[in-house]
C-alpha cells in the first residue's frame, strides 16, 4: 500500500443501478452494486459473459453515466474520465495509435497532460524499460507481438501517472504462455508502483493468481456483486497449491448455476444495441 493514503477508500461504488435504454426497450444491467476499492489494492471483477462487469468498469472509468446510486473517486463524484484513472483495453490494436511509434504512443499522453517537455525523455525511458520495450521504441504497433502491444499499453498508461488502472480483460486475447508472462509483468509493476488496479476477467485462475480481492458478479439482468473473496496467499501463487485448488473449486461452484443461466439468456435476450460489446 502506498503511503499517504492509509487505508482510505479510494474508489467507492454505492448502490449503483444502470439501465440501458434503446428503441428496442430497456435493459437493467446493474442493480444495487456496491464496492469499495482500497488504495493500492488489486481487485478482480469476476463473472461470466454478459454479467455487466465491463459495464461496471466503464462506469468507474467515467465512460458510462449511471442511472442511480453514486460512484466517487477520492470522495469526488465521477462524471467523466479523470486524470487519476486510466482505462486499459483488451484490443490493443484499436486502443493504440497505429500511426505512432512505441515512443510516440507514450509521448501522446505526456503532451496531452502538458507534462514539461524537459521531462519527456526520462519518463518515456523509465516506463519503456519497465515493460521491456526500450529496444523497440522506434517500431510501430503493427510490428509488435500481441504481448508487446499490451505492454506498450501498460507503459502508455503508467506514463501519465494515474493512481488507478482499469483493465478490461486485458490479456484474454493472448495465448496462454504470453498471458502468464503478462501476469508476472503486471504484478511486478503493481508491486513496484503501488497502483490501484481494477481488473475485469471471466477467468477464475487469472483472478486467483492476481487479485488481493475478487468480486464475484452474478449475471444480468440486475447483475450485482454476490461475493467478495479476500485472497491473502503470497504471490506467485501456484495452482497446484491445495488452498488455491480449493478456492478455485469454491468459485467455480459459485459461478456454475450462473453459467448455465448465462447461456440460456444469451439465446433469449434481445440485447439493446451496443450492450453486447460493453
Amino acid at each position, binding site marked *: 500500500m502506498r503511503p499517504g493514503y492509509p487505508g482510505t477508500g479510494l474508489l467507492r461504488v454505492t448502490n449503483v443501478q444502470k439501465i440501458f435504454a434503446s428503441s428496442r426497450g430497456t435493459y437493467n444491467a446493474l442493480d444495487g452494486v456496491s464496492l469499495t476499492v482500497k488504495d493500492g489494492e488489486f481487485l478482480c471483477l469476476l463473472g461470466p459473459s454478459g454479467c455487466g462487469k465491463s459495464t461496471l468498469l466503464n462506469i468507474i472509468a467515467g465512460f458510462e453515466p449511471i442511472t442511480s446510486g453514486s460512484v466517487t473517486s477520492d470522495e469526488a463524484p465521477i462524471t467523466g474520465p479523470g486524470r487519476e484513472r486510466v482505462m486499459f483495453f483488451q*484490443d490493443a490494436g484499436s486502443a493504440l495509435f497505429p500511426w505512432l511509434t512505441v515512443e510516440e504512443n507514450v509521448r501522446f499522453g505526456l503532451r496531452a497532460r502538458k507534462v514539461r517537455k524537459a521531462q519527456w525523455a526520462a519518463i518515456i525511458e523509465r516506463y519503456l524499460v519497465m515493460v521491456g520495450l526500450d529496444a523497440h521504441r522506434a517500431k510501430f504497433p503493427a510490428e509488435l507481438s500481441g504481448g508487446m502491444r499490451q505492454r506498450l499499453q501498460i507503459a502508455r498508461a503508467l506514463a501519465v501517472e494515474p493512481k488507478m488502472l482499469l483493465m478490461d480483460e486485458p490479456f484474454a486475447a493472448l495465448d496462454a504462455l504470453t498471458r502468464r508472462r503478462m501476469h508476472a509483468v503486471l504484478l511486478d509493476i503493481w508491486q513496484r508502483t503501488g497502483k490501484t488496479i481494477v481488473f475485469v476477467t471471466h477467468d477464475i485462475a487469472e483472478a486467483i493468481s492476481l487479485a488481493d480481492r475478487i468480486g464475484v458478479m452474478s449475471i444480468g439482468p440486475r447483475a450485482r456483486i454476490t461475493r467478495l473473496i479476500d485472497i491473502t496467499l503470497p504471490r506467485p501463487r501456484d495452482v497446484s497449491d491445495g488452498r488455491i485448488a480449493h478456492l478455485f473449486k469454491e468459485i467455480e461452484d459459485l459461478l456454475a448455476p450462473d453459467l448455465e443461466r448465462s447461456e440460456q439468456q444469451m439465446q433469449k435476450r434481445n440485447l439493446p444495441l451496443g450492450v453486447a460489446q460493453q
Partner: protein
Amino acid sequence: MTEIRHDKAGLEAPRADHDSLWQIGKWLSANRLPRGLSLGAVSMVIAFLTWQLLSTFVFNPFLIPPPLEVFRTAIPMVMSGEIATDVAISMSRVLVGFVVGSAVGVVLGVLLGRIRLLHDLLDPIIELLRYLSPTAMIPIAVIWFGIGELSKYFLIFWGTFFIVLINTIAGVWRAPVNRQRAAECLGASRLQIFVLVVIPSSVPYIVTGMRVAMASSFMSIIPAEILAADSGIGYLLQRSSMLLQTNRIFVALLTICLLGFVVDRIFRLLVDRVLARYMSFVSQT
C-alpha cells in the same frame, strides 16, 4: 493480380496447355525480372496477340485496327507532341477538379462525420445528389460554365466530391471508440481527440475514396471532352470518330488506359511515401 494467377498456375502446372506459357514465365523469372513484372509482360503479349488475331481473322481490320497499325499511327502523333498536348490538357482538368473536389470532400466529410446535426441535416441532400453522375451534369455545366476549362473542372469536382465525402464520413465513423476513449483517459481534449485521433484513424478510408475518385475522374473527363470541348483526349476521340479514323481512336483509347494506370501508380507511391504510417490496420474494432 498477376501474382495470384502465377500461384494457381504453379499449383496446376505443368498442364499441357499451360506449358509454353509456364516456360516463358520461368525463362523471364530466371532472367531475374521480378515475378510480377515478368508475368505482366506475358499478360501484355497475350493481349497483343489476341488483338492481332481478332483484327486479322475475325473482324474487319478497319473496325479493329491491328496493333502494329495503331503503333504506326501513334508514332507521328507522339513525335509531333499532339498526344502530349492532349494528355496535358486532360490531366490538368482532372487534377484541378480532383484536388479541389478531394479537399472540399475531406473537410466537409470530417465535419459531417463528427457533427451529428449537420450530418442529419445534409445527408438527405447528399444521398439524392450523388446519383447525378458527372456525365448527367454535362449539359447544365456547359450552360453554366461554357465549354472552357471551368465546366471541366466543375464536372471532375462533382464526381470526386461525393465519393471522397462519403468515404471520409465512413472513416470518421469507424474511428475505434476504444482509441478515442484511450486518448481521453490520457488527458486529450475533445478537439485533440478529433484532430489527433479521429482524423488520422480515418486516413485509410479517405485514401481509398480518393483512389476511387481518381478512377472515376478519368472516366468522366472523356465524355465531358467528347461533348463539350475543343481540346483534350476526349476531343481527340470525338474528332477521330467524326473522320472515321479508327486508328487514331485506338491510339486515344490506349493513351487513356496507360494514363489511368500510371497516375494510379503515382498516387499509390505518393501515399506510400507520405501517409504510410497512417495506412496500417492493426485492428479496427
